[in-house]
């Protein structure tokens, strides 16, 4: 037979093309697919308002990752939302990065947010500190300390600099949100931040904010695959309870 590992091949094809089909379907629809409530997005206006009342600043950092991947793109869409809130409620944002190549992207995202908030004339404060991990850590901790940042957003691709920076923000009593797909830095964020977007929840939050119809369509496609996994698991549990491994044989065909 020309096809080997058939069941795996079927799963691969479904995983590749089902989200693409739903993407095409929703691209033609007028309204957006409805996504469940994401608590982190509701907290942003409250955080920025609190910082504005205290006369403090908001701080946005995409982590130290060097590639513009899905995590950084989600982080940028969150920056646009924060900039919109700052334009409405007042206050200021400081954006610090370790990658010069990100700076134009950050400026664009911030200006888009300011314009949406009705203040296109605001100038975003974007700073490139250094590309060395621990020197970047020290730089950001200095900003948190000196410039009293009370609404901190750590959304992007993080590594070992996550703990020292978020702990410094916590020590200043700031409200903090974090988001990353790197499961090894999330435990530190859970302890130091008020809300943490875990793995896919972070990427979806970015898509919801940008109202990207295509990406949201793809997410609905992935949901259908997960429902399929749930059905398969229920059948598997029933099969295991009555002692047959019918499902297991299908999956290893």
């Amino acid at each position: 037979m020309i096809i080997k590992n058939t069941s795996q091949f079927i799963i691969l094809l479904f995983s590749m093309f089902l989200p693409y089909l739903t993407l095409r379907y929703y691209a033609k629809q007028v309204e957006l697919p409805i996504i469940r409530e994401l608590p982190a997005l509701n907290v942003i206006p409250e955080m920025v308002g609190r910082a504005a009342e205290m006369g403090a600043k908001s701080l946005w950092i995409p982590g130290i990752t060097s590639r513009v991947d899905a995590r950084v793109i989600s982080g940028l869409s969150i920056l646009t939302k924060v900039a919109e809130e700052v334009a409405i409620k007042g206050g200021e944002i400081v954006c610090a990065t370790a990658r010069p190549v990100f700076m134009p992207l950050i400026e664009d995202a911030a200006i888009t947010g300011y314009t949406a908030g009705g203040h296109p004339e605001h100038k975003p404060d974007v700073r490139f500190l250094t590309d060395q991990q621990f020197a970047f850590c020290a730089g950001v901790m200095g900003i948190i300390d000196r410039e009293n940042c009370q609404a901190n957003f750590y959304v992007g691709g993080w590594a070992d600099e996550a703990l020292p920076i978020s702990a410094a923000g916590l020590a200043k009593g700031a409200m903090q949100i974090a988001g990353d797909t790197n499961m090894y830095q999330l435990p530190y964020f859970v302890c130091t931040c008020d809300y943490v977007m875990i793995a896919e929840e972070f990427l979806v939050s970015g898509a919801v904010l940008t109202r990207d119809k295509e990406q949201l369509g793809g997410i609905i496609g992935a949901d259908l695959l997960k429902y399929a996994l749930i059905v398969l698991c229920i059948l598997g549990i029933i099969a295991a309870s009555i002692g047959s491994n019918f499902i297991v044989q299908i999956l290893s065909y």
Partner: protein
Amino acid sequence: MVATTIGPWIGLFFTWAIYSYLLYKENIAFRFAEHTFIGVAAGINFVMAMKTLQGNTLQPILNGELIYAIGLILGIIILLRYIKPIKFASNWSMAFYVGTTLGLTISRLPITSIIVPLKSFFLPPNTLDNIVLIAGFFTVLSYFIFGRLPNKQVEQARDYVNRAGRLFLMVTLGAMFGASLLGRFAMVIERIYFTMRTLGLAA
């Protein structure tokens, strides 16, 4: 017994130049150590890369196996990025690299990350362990389903399921946090042991 050769003492200087950043503040010794680290790392990186290219790409071509020339040409194209007019060519080699790496990764994901973990949940719910495992599967998977269900009541019930799923994730993250302590402290222990051995305070 105190270290007799100069090597360990150089290592001691660099170790505590790095730690001076913690115990004191950023200073010239730390920045000197940092730049030494960057320089030596790049030097080793370059030599290792040249050795593998010379041994495993160039050598076979000289021995007559000309198919390896394709790898050599694709590699040289990467270096063309510095020449402005033909900079676009370096994308072809990147495309070759990304296509192979991505294709290999996703070709094995259905078995390693979907079928095998899924089969591990096919358990009769007759023991506590099995019930907790099955509950973990359904609640965490529900947490990662983002489309809102049309039915209001079902969606409210799902909020509680998602809440339980998030707590399962917290236990997983906690275990990773607990295990990471073993890793973090092992590195510090090795540095302190090296320091004591060099100073002759430990065998």
